[in-house]
């Protein structure tokens, strides 16, 4: 077994080295396509997380000035209560909004805030989401109102954009993954071809089929693995430095999950490529 282990590693490495140009091409194609897959997954998760955090049951929020008078607040409250397109409203005091900000924002940001700086707010649910705009236009310029936000509308638009980006990324990734598989298949085919004498002698003297196959399978596996490692580095770099990060608050778990998917897809691509090559060209 130990003999075999050493043999398989030696063969795999020498095959990789012999076809190094093809190997590099295959690894890079895997890396680029998996980076796209990883980014698409991260985007999707960011969007989902953003929706979950911002929405929290509210469809439109009327933010009062922190300095708004009691009269201004009650005027807004009465108007909201009388609007038929508003199903329900909840009033958040400055203290409540401060507590919420504490949950949502990173420490570096909320620690500079004080309760007195926080706006109080009305969280309202319109009868239909589109009515959030009516609420917005009604209250935008009223005294004491700081701003009106309808996160769902924003999220909806953003989600739409993200979905398109995602589809484009995934379609590109699909095409690239296909070509990565073909490239891996081709490197394995070349490796098999350059070793055909060895393979015929091996069959002759009674090497088992798996003994003959395994170096080629590990070769494809390693190409897929190297590709996914490069992709993981790229995705992690994106996660760390891309500006979306701050806004979307993606946690480390999402990154680990995404990288796990990237790794698995890479390894599967490599193994499938070599399996096809072995089936078609090795004949054992």
């Amino acid at each position: 077994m130990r003999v075999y282990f050493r043999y398989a590693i030696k063969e795999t490495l020498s095959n990789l080295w012999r076809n190094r140009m093809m190997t590099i091409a295959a690894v890079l194609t895997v890396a680029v396509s998996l980076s796209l897959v990883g980014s698409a997954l991260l985007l999707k998760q960011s969007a989902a997380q953003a929706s979950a955090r911002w929405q929290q049951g509210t469809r439109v929020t009327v933010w009062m000035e922190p300095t708004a008078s009691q009269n201004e607040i009650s005027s807004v409250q009465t108007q909201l209560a009388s609007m038929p397109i508003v199903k329900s409203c909840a009033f958040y005091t400055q203290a409540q909004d401060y507590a919420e900000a504490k949950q949502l924002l990173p420490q570096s940001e909320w620690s500079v805030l004080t309760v007195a700086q926080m706006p109080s707010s009305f969280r309202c649910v319109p009868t239909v989401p589109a009515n959030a705009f009516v609420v917005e236009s009604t209250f935008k310029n009223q005294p004491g109102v700081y701003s009106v936000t309808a996160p769902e509308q924003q999220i909806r638009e953003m989600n739409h954009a993200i979905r398109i980006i995602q589809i484009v990324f995934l379609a590109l990734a699909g095409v690239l993954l296909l070509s990565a598989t073909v490239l891996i298949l081709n490197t394995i085919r070349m490796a098999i071809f350059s070793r055909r004498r060895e393979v015929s002698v091996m069959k002759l003297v009674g090497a088992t089929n798996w003994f003959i196959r395994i170096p080629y399978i590990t070769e494809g596996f390693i190409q897929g693995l190297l590709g996914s490692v490069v992709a993981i580095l790229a995705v992690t770099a994106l996660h760390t430095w891309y500006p979306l990060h701050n806004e979307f608050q993606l946690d480390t778990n999402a990154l680990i999950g995404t990288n796990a998917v990237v790794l698995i897809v890479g390894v599967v691509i490599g193994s499938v490529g070599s399996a096809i090559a072995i089936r078609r060209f090795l004949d054992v």
Partner: protein
Amino acid sequence: MIRFENVSKTYKNGTPALKDISLDIEKGEFVFLVGASGSGKTTFLRLLLREELPDQGRILEAGRDIGDLPKWRVPYLRRNIGCVFQDFRLLPNKTVFDNVAFALEVIGRPRSTVESQVPQILDLVGLADKSRNLPGELSGGEQQRVAVARAFVNRPLILLADEPTGNLDPANSESIMALLERINRTGTTVVMATHDKALVDRMRRRVIELDRGEMIRDQVRGVYGVDEGAML
């Protein structure tokens, strides 16, 4: 050791390669397989290696029907059969030692076995001093001796030789034959397909002659040609 029971084989294009062959080869026998090109000699050897399966009949090796072997067992069957070919089939980028060692390594023999067996077998074929050379640096006769060493290093029960002297001059043919005889004396069954008339005539071993797939002669101490055989 080898038993053919009414074995027939027809290739897909319809040419019959072997027709209803029945024979027994005992353990330790030395058998010549003679006949013109296309007479079925190579098919005979391929069937023994289970590279092909017969259409009809059975082939038994060491008492077992090799047609019943599951596919994954075939490599283990081949470990008991050594093979030598006209074109040597050595690996050009490996030394003599490594060529022979390769046969043991790829069936998972430990390093210690390789290091004890290979020098021993190279000594047997008289190439101990060339073990670090590449095949390209050897003469044809020496290369064929390396091939015999590789075929025999795992001590197979059967040695198949397909025209082993086909590319060699008479002197080298002679030394290969001497080597095969020596291997045969260790109890290994040797089946050798050949065109070399002089060789067969001189050896006086069992001769099986095939003609267009039919066995037309099986003679215990035969010579190459039918007519000469009849005269004796």
